[in-house]
């Protein structure tokens, strides 16, 4: 049982390596909890667990993905403890909501990109998404994890990951474009394929 523990220098390396992901982990925790105190707690818990189980981490595999998995597992356990389950996520109602208005979007990505309020708008739109969609979209488009890594972090099948990403993105774009829809009408073909 002792042999698997990393040597002291390994443990120091592990600690230094893990700590370089502190900022993005905290940003991710903020999107999960939407509350600074909870996010802080969650990240600290994640590091305590990561160091405690560092012997289970095999070198050469993705430390960043491993830390994100611990973060999400910890968050799920807390939510379960708080009996605020996420069962409703893939229910028909959410699916309908995610399908959104079938119509043309009110703005183009290029024009949205030029907004001075883009960062705040994106943040707000993300935070408005149902938890499961926000998590999947964030892990894919901001953190650039693979579908398989995300499936492991969220503890759902890859197919579910892909459909959550799709729906989350569509909802996000609708929210973003809707926020200026009344001000800037756009030509019909602008929402077409890119």
């Amino acid at each position, binding site marked *: 049982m*002792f*042999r698997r*523990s*990393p*040597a*002291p220098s390994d*443990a*120091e390396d*592990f*600690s230094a390596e*893990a*700590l370089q992901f*502190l*900022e*993005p982990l*905290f*940003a991710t925790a903020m999107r999960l909890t939407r509350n*600074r105190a909870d*996010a*802080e707690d969650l*990240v*600290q818990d994640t*590091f*305590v667990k990561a*160091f*405690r189980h*560092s012997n289970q981490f095999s070198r050469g595999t993705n430390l960043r993905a491993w830390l994100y998995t611990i973060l999400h597992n910890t968050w799920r356990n807390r939510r379960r403890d708080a009996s605020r389950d996420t069962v409703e996520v893939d229910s028909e109602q959410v699916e309908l909501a995610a399908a959104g208005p*079938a*119509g*043309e*979007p009110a703005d*183009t*990505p290029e024009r*949205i*990109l030029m907004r001075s309020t*883009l*960062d705040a708008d*994106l*943040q707000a739109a*993300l935070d408005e998404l149902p938890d499961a969609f926000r998590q999947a*979209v964030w892990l*894919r*488009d*901001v*953190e*650039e994890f693979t579908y398989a890594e995300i499936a492991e972090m969220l503890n759902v099948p890859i197919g579910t990951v*892909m*459909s959550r*990403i*799709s729906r989350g*993105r*569509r909802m*996000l*774009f*609708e929210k*973003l474009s809707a926020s200026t829809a009344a001000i800037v009408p756009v030509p019909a073909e602008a*929402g*077409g*394929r*890119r």
Partner: protein
Amino acid sequence: MKPNCRRICDMLAQYADGTLADTQRAEVQRHLDACPPCRVVAGKECGARQLLRACADRLRGAEPLPPGLRSRCQAAGRSRNTQTTATRWWSRPSMRFAVAAAIIIVFGALLSVVTRQSDALLAAQLTADHVKCFRLFRPDEGKTMDAAQAEQILRDRFGLDVHVPASSNGGTAGRGGQAVALLNARTCLYADGRVPHLMYEANGHDISLFVLEGESRPPAELTAFGHHTRIWSRGGNTFVLITPADEAPVASAAQYVAAEAH
């Protein structure tokens, strides 16, 4: 919506990510060219991806770390490292030996404290040393030590001024005529090596005389591990004499040593 739309929509995540194989990508592309509703959906999906990728670095860095979070996480790592170091330290073979030695020393020191209270423990401990010393440090056959030299050793090493019973041919000692030879004076490991050990031989049997400096005990005689132990105090020191359990062959020699030591 055409029957194919559902299948195409399921591929849009990968289409937007650019992770589709060429043939699938071409298929999705053909469908989107022909299907305006799916084109709208694909536009939203690609648009969201494009915006998020463009802002990813800023989004990830948008949350300033709470003060103290980094140092608390670092501390979590440090306490874990210390634990790991301790684990490794134990697992090293050289360290296992050192730890075993340390335990023996500590236990030995403890024993020396305890034996001050108990004659039986003292007898057992010194009997063990008696056997060990004769096995390991018996001088060459026929070689003896001068009493004056032994006294000098006791003075130099222990600051003890003790009269060491000299070798005797038995005639001068009288009373039974058993010859006694002083073989060696050495430092015994008992009580952190502060106990002088005088090794004698009489009638082919081993006899040990230990001197416990500055100790005073009531006289006692007992048998432990096949040896007879005599304990007495004289002149502010305690003497312990170890002889075979069957004392007859060395009775007068033991008496002589006991009487002469002071």
